[in-house]
């Protein structure tokens, strides 16, 4: 497992502000980041993870269709022998669903961590530092939201 972090907005979603900020946070924290941008397909996530020997795949979704968009992603990653940790974050369901149920759903799909849209990027950085067991530049932990 490498150290590169793959980042992208899945499906037809074009919300770019959130991953732009996450990218900045990860880069500032010393990670190698490959930002696939908005409207990224499952296949693009998988091939990027393969090509970069990714340590982590971070999926963003803000437009409410994450369930459909993520279906089969982990199977394809497994087929590609990718052992990267996977996170997902954003507005993960349409409407006012119960969050713990939503989070459980995505954990069952295979995501190692599930973040809501109010998550501070520093929380993602901290999680990655633990999960990738790497030493990176120290980062402040000001609360910053990533809901867009």
């Amino acid at each position, binding site marked *: 497992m490498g150290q590169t972090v793959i980042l992208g907005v899945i499906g037809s979603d074009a919300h*770019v502000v959130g991953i732009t900020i996450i990218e900045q946070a990860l880069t500032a924290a010393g990670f190698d980041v490959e930002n696939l941008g908005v409207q990224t397909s499952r296949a693009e996530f998988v091939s990027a993870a393969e090509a970069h020997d990714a340590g982590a795949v971070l999926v963003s979704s803000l437009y409410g269709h994450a369930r459909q968009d993520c279906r089969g992603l982990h199977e394809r990653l497994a087929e590609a022998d990718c052992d990267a940790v996977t996170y997902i974050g954003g507005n993960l369901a349409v409407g006012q669903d119960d969050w713990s149920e939503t989070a459980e759903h995505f954990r069952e799909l295979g995501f190692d961590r599930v973040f*809501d849209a109010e998550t501070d990027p520093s929380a993602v950085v901290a999680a990655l530092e633990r999960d990738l067991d790497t030493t990176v530049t120290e980062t402040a932990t000001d609360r*910053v939201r990533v809901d867009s």
Partner: protein
Amino acid sequence: MVRDERIPGDQLRETADELRDRWPTGADADFEAAVEFHDSLPPSKRFADVLESADRPLLQPRAGVPRLDDQVDLLRYLESEGGADLLPTTIDSYTRDNEYGKAQQGLDDARESGEDTLNGFPAVNHGVDACRDLVRSVDAPVEVRHGTPDARLLAVVTLAGGFESFEGGPISYNIPYTKEHDLAETIEHWQFVDRLCGAYTERGVRINREPFGPLTGTLVPPAIAIAVMILEGLLATTQGVRSLTLGYGQVGNVVQDVAALRALRGLGEAYLPDDTVVTTVFHEWMGGFPPDEARASGVIGLGGATAALARPDKVITKSPQEFQGVPTREANASGLRTTRQLIDMMVEQDIVVDGIDRERELIERTARSLVETAIARGDGDAARGTVAAFESGELDVPFAPSDSAAAAVLPARDDDGRVRVLEWGNLAVPDDVREIHETRLDERARTEGRSRSFRMVADDVDAISDGKLIGRPGTGDGTDAPGDTGGPAGGESDAD
């Protein structure tokens, strides 16, 4: 290779013929008959004339529903109950993706079920006659508003259908709207649209063109928006467009907004040919809105007040239901009336705000640098230069999803709430301009006792929806403001 050259008449006709074969309604788009229809319209429906001769800022909402009769009702309502001076017809997403088959399905569903499954008016599917019915059914001039990278067939049908204004442009409807559309190709597509407008113009039907100024709608530094407007304006005038409305989206700082609108007008007049009439349009705040109609009315109020000070030719209004997506027609009319009240109460007042000229000078200098760098990269050709400058990142738009832009620029507000540049990427601006921005951002960092960082960006993106202008630490921290309807505060709004 794309070049900023006028499309020859025979090529225009050839391409138009090809496009008209792409969907059955294309056949009805006869140019001569269209000119005749435009000539039959009363002066009150001549978009360019009405806009250019107005003695006060005209108001225009956004609005589009799938069915013709509903669209007529909606526009009439916005005229009578909102006092809209200019009308829109917003096109659905399938049409924006050139998926006319899917749009047809959505229109058929809407007609059958009475429910609106499309998010706008599929003008290509409706065809020329339906567009003319729409234009005939309302009193004010109507504009096509959309977000379509390849809007050629849409233009063929809607201009033949009597619309006299057409929003968008090759940069402003590509960079903020799509991921994979090639910029050079999009420029070629818009050269066709502009050339078609030029053909009407030559026949006395002066079609108004409106590049989309707000771009990504999220803290776009004014100089970047203005540079894009000038480049799109140059490309359009090459093709014969003679009525251009350059756009700018409110950032919320009064001095900067007024300065930007003046800079936009000034540079528009400086760069564009003398035979082109340049007007300006001010978009009320395009970023995230408070999830509360009362606070949203406050944001709209600041938009109206700013418009009263800056006096653009046109204002695109927002509704107090902005947070929840497409507003009801009542809310849409409310946004118009709140804006109107502010403008009418303030526009006769002599309110001179200090420091506007200084900010304007900074914006103009920066925008000139961007425009001239782009033109230089094309060896004097604005089309080639635009592609090259976006590729090198010398021209760039923050938060742009497009692969054609570097999107390396990151904006943040300074201590006074003006939008400055935090990360420059390769943006082509003079060193002394960079220093000014950095000094201002350092001031803010000192005020807030934190370092200048992307965290400011994230905080600023959410600030207005959280009820502030500047994203200070310890504010907007997830504790709900009064009136918050709950749910995460969306920091981004879909452009247009």
